[in-house]
């Protein structure tokens, strides 16, 4: 490791090393209590953390003296890949950013592209996007909460979370055809409509999921061990969190009321009635509570959206943007031209630049895009919410106990796919 980072106190060559120097054995007999810093590698593959990240921790007893996050194990060249495929072909890459809530990445990306083109998508598509996003928000939070519980020693909450996740995944699979990498939505709307009878199934699923969420809530929220491990650990002040660029539930846990859905309502969020939970202390327990509460709010949103969703088209009827219906492609020259041009050269996005953001499960998912007027993006910058959050971990944890690192790392919900692009 060619780090420029120097150890805090490099052992001087003159000082006797009790472990290696022969004359030190004498001293050893006297049970020397020479303090010595210990270096621990947490990760890239560690049973008590999720996400492939290497935390190089320097311990003084149980306290963390220095910590350095080494990330990039999941780097896949997201931006470079996007620059070399058509706008539509970027969509599967966005699945793999936050792979626990793929749809939110899909829709966030599409929203930015649509803003760049200047499109207003059909109302029904907006509702489907809200429903999909909120389903995946529950999915994401369940993963986070379940994993937190498990890594702090409670296996039952994890099983409840996984079962609830499984139910959501089944609904997602019915909707998109895939459990995890949804690749759902297209520029200008959606690629498929809600399946028949899906809405009723979702309501039933939500009943069940919320049962599990309450179960988890009951198991953890007043659990002595859990509370002891999470309360007053991993504290970050609101000012620090803002300075580091935190967003989403982690920022709200510090008492800052910032939710893109409320501040700058996109799609049909302004028609939904929901509350944004805000914490007080910015510790691990608050971050956990934010997620539990947000799941309940998401449940409210989905139920409202399923009730309000109007009938109508799901994608724009413009053959420069959306693929023509298949009979037109096979039977008319107009359809086949449009199909070929859209597939081979991509949607022609007018030259320009845009910054757009949506509220993803972990915070503000921002996109800065530059188009040179061709069918391929010139630049796709993704502001993954987890990236600034992870960058603050050394600040939070320095001087604290090693044991605090586990819940902290859990509740910030670092997702390798989005942080490491």
């Amino acid at each position: 490791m060619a780090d420029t980072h120097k150890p805090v106190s490099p052992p001087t060559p003159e000082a006797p090393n009790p472990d290696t120097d022969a004359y030190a054995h004498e001293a050893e007999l006297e049970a020397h209590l020479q303090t010595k810093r210990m270096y621990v590698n947490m990760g890239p593959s560690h049973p008590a953390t999720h996400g492939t990240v290497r935390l190089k921790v320097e311990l003084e007893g149980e306290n963390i003296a220095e910590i350095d996050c080494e990330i990039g194990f999941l780097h896949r060249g997201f931006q470079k890949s996007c620059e070399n495929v058509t706008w539509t072909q970027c969509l599967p890459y966005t699945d793999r950013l936050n792979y626990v809530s793929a749809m939110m990445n899909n829709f966030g990306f599409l929203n930015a592209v649509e803003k760049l083109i200047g499109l207003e998508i059909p109302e029904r598509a907006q509702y489907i996007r809200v429903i999909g996003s909120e389903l995946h928000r529950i999915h994401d939070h369940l993963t986070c909460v379940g994993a937190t519980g498990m890594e702090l020693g409670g296996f039952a909450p994890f099983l409840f979370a996984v079962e609830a996740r499984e139910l959501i995944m089944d609904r997602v699979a019915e909707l998109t055809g895939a459990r995890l990498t949804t690749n759902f939505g297209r520029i200008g709307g959606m690629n498929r409509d809600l399946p028949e009878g899906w809405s009723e199934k979702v309501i039933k699923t939500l009943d069940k999921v919320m049962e599990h969420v309450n179960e988890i809530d009951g198991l953890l929220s007043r659990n002595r061990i859990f509370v002891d491990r999470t309360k007053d650990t991993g504290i970050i002040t609101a000012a620090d969190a803002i300075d580091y660029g935190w967003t989403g539930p982690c920022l709200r846990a510090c008492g800052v009321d910032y939710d893109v859905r409320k501040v700058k309502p996109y799609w049909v969020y302004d028609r939904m009635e929901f509350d944004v939970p805000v914490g007080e202390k910015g510790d691990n327990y608050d971050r956990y509570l934010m997620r539990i509460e947000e799941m309940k709010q998401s449940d409210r949103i989905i139920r409202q959206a399923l009730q309000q969703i109007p009938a109508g088209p799901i994608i724009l009827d413009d053959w420069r943007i959306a693929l023509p219906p298949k009979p037109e492609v096979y039977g008319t020259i107009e359809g086949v031209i449009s199909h070929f041009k859209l597939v081979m050269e991509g949607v022609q996005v007018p030259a320009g630049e845009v910054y757009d953001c949506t509220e993803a499960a972990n915070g503000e998912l921002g996109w800065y895009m530059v188009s040179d007027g061709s069918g391929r993006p010139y630049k796709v910058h993704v502001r993954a919410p987890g990236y600034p959050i992870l960058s603050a971990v050394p600040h939070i944890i320095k001087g604290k106990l090693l044991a605090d690192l586990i819940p902290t790392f859990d509740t910030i919900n670092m997702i390798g796919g989005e942080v490491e692009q």
Partner: protein
Amino acid sequence: MSTFALDRVTAQFPEAVAERYLDRTGGAWAVIHAEHLPKVAAFLKNELDFKLFTSIDAVDRLHLAENDPRFEVVYFIYSLSRHEHVRFKVRVSEARPEIPSITPVFRGADWWERFVWDFYGIRFSGHPDLRRVLLYEEFQGHPLRKDYALRDRQPLIPERPIKDIFRGPGTSGVS
């Protein structure tokens, strides 16, 4: 979209702003001269309450019609009181890809500046710890530059030596 912040910046530091424009979607932009960047960032943070650091990235304009200077570093900062983003950019030449760091002003800029250094090779003078962030130190080149070939390959690097990890400080761990 509001141009409040940029108006104030222009009024305060007329010499810092090279250009103002609106992008096609109505976003207000300013091009800031690199040497005035820390001043502008501090003004935005302390006076105008643009505190929530959103992100930094760069654009390699090599294949765009207008490509001199070659790089653009873009900044996005959010104001929680005004509920709007301020967006501005700094242009950097290929010959001397170095601009002042704003990490002393915004701690959140730390990793983003490392990211830009990693992928575009733009240095941030005054950054406390400018290392690669996602790639490894031995990586050759900066892959998001447009002249980095899509299928370029990297040389194999020798395995790093691991000293006795159990017995005491070596080059493993924080080294």
